[in-house]
């Protein structure tokens, strides 16, 4: 299980990384934590001639708050997200999601930026970012641009990132105080991708739903925002009938790929169940 041969580059600055990527072109791949790319290279699913390791670029790490926004460097690891008091207090949904990714060893290496750039619908951050209405800062030879999470994921391993761009920063609007949250993930074992998972942010007004954000992992070629389910809940109490309707609407947009985790009907049903559980858990945490 040795990866194919490649040349290795370890730029010390973002500028250097951008010019390397521009000059090496599509023969190059960016190396973040390496826990998706290296396994794919071992299997010859990816055979880049060059790897550009972003690990030495300090500017790509770190978590800070900037006037109501949580700003996260793309090379921040899952372990760093989990260890961050800022993440736990301001965006607990992100901590709950990160705690369910892979296993401890992988979380020390795996990065939020790598997870998002990879465009794998089985990864957990895409749905978390959709539910949180995050923005992504993309840096390339023409400068920086910002892309909303909603619309960033185009298909299996396909995103809005141009081949010469690097995802450098994730910007998450900090949810209002009293917002409930939950990430419910069904997996066969530690380290497996989700059979189905649902991210929920929920604001209540009295006993009625003021606003719900619902996003689905591994239910289709990309993470999905379940907008019809969100709309159906607005103004309603979260009871058996409204939960069943939200789950039904979430299931109606599922197009999972059948694999060893289950067939289409089972995965779709589990997406409905994860949606129901995430809404209930978020309700229990929401202020009124």
């Amino acid at each position, binding site marked *: *299980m*040795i*990866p*194919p*041969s*490649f*040349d*290795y580059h*370890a730029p010390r600055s973002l500028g250097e990384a951008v010019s390397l990527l521009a000059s090496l072109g599509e023969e190059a791949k960016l*190396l973040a934590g*390496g*826990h998706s790319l*290296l*396994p794919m*290279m*071992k299997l010859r699913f990816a055979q880049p001639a060059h*790897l550009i*390791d972003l*690990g030495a670029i300090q500017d790509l790490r770190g978590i800070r708050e900037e006037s109501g926004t949580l700003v996260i460097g793309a090379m921040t690891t899952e*372990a760093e997200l989990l260890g961050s008091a800022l993440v736990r207090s301001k965006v607990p949904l992100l901590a709950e999601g990160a705690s369910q990714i*892979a*296993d*401890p*060893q*992988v979380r*020390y*290496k795996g990065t939020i930026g790598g997870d998002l750039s990879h465009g794998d619908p089985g990864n957990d951050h895409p749905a978390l970012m959709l539910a949180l209405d995050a923005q992504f800062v993309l840096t390339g030879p023409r400068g920086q641009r910002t892309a909303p999470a909603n619309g960033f994921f185009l298909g299996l391993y396909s995103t809005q990132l141009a081949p010469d761009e690097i995802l450098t920063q994730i910007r998450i609007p900090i949810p209002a105080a009293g917002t409930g949250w939950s990430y419910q993930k069904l997996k066969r074992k*530690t*380290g497996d991708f989700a059979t189905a998972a649902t991210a929920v942010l929920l604001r209540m007004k009295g006993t009625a739903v003021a606003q719900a954000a619902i996003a689905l992992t591994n239910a289709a070629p990309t993470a999905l925002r379940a907008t019809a389910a969100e709309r159906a809940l607005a103004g309603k109490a979260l009871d058996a009938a409204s939960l069943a309707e939200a789950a039904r609407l979430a299931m109606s947009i599922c197009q999972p790929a059948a694999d060893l985790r289950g067939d289409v009907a089972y995965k779709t049903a589990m997406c409905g169940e994860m949606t129901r559980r995430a809404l209930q858990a978020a309700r229990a945490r929401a202020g009124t």
Partner: protein
Amino acid sequence: MAKLHNVAFKLNGKAVAAEVEPRELLIYTLRERLGATGAHIGCETSHCGACTVDCNGMSVKSCTVLTVQCAGADVLTVEGLERGGALHALQQAFHEEHGLQCGYCTPGMLMRAYRLLQENPSPSEAEIRYGMAGNLCRCTGYQNIVKAVQSAARKLAAKPAAA
């Protein structure tokens, strides 16, 4: 062949260097170039954890880390746990609590447990199971591994200098 890189790092406190192709995985450098055969190759797909070593204060699966990524790193393997011929409290506890049968997963278990106790010196059973979830054992059923980690945690708490 790709350009070779001369990678220098610290292994169990000693300066080491190896001239490697970029595609060489850390586990191969450790085992085949540096003679540190404590870390085992299990699945080679970052699932089993037998190859777990400590790198810059992180538990990593050395089958999924390139040696070139470790330039300047501080790497600790199971060979580095004992002190002056005496077993580390974790090694002693795995022995006393029967935390192994065939022993293949043990170096990875020890290195992961080592980092877990550095970060959380008195973990609950649930925290141990969550914190060790990246290491598979096909013999023990994990019960005695959990007991061993708990026992080592108690001993280290009583005698912190042994850490």
